[in-house]
């Protein structure tokens, strides 16, 4: 049976690094699409979120890439925009740059923390190996 006792700290750290790098990729998509008024479905781009879940093994896994439908679109007055409605307003993505940048910092810090765990663990293993000298 897969349990946390049987999982190497190495695998747990790797799962964390994978999850955070995936998160970073999604955040960069959000930032790149901050002004995309026309997505593939004709609507403005909706920000994406990574949903993480914990495994019985202690590893983290990516549950799904969710779409933020709760936050409303930003409305910008831009009558000359071909995507503008009758009243001259254009629906812009529900991406908030400061929020994305905070999440980006958090993702990269978490990645660093997982890498630090990996490094420390291997230092511990190395220490044990030194006893064999």
């Amino acid at each position, binding site marked *: 049976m897969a349990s946390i006792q049987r999982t*190497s700290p190495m695998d747990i*750290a790797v799962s964390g690094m994978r999850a955070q790098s995936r998160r970073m990729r999604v955040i960069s998509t959000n930032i790149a699409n901050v002004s995309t008024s026309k997505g593939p479905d004709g609507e403005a781009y909706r920000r994406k979120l990574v949903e993480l879940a914990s495994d019985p093994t202690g590893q983290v896994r990516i549950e799904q890439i969710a779409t933020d439908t709760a936050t409303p679109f930003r409305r910008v007055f831009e009558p000359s925009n071909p995507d503008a409605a009758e009243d001259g307003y254009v629906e812009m993505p529900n991406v908030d740059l400061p929020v994305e940048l905070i999440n980006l910092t958090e993702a990269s810090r978490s990645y660093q923390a997982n890498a630090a765990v990996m490094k420390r663990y291997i230092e511990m293993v190395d220490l044990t190996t030194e006893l064999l000298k």
Partner: protein
Amino acid sequence: MTKQANMIDLLSAGIRGASVRQKVIAGNIANAETPGFKRRVVEFEKALAKAMDRGDGLDGPVETKVQALAEGRTDATGNNVDLEVEIGELVQNGANYKAYMRILNNVYKQMETAMTVQ
């Protein structure tokens, strides 16, 4: 008495497996951006354990299997190499290799001690 696999044979099987694995991981990392590339893994521990269970010693090298894995998340080109996973394996494999080497060194040192007893 059944023939027991000697320590040096076991260690050399481990060292051989770990060095093949090192090369395979390096190949995976090198191909992280190759369209359609599937990551490869090395399997030798099971064969080694089986050979040890038979208890008739290791006759010849332990089978080292290299196989491409199709599972896992793939990118748009079908490549399923994840840099984080490969680095984790690389570090773990390096630690194993070092441990085998140290133990082998100890076995040789023991022999040397036995030979120099006056």
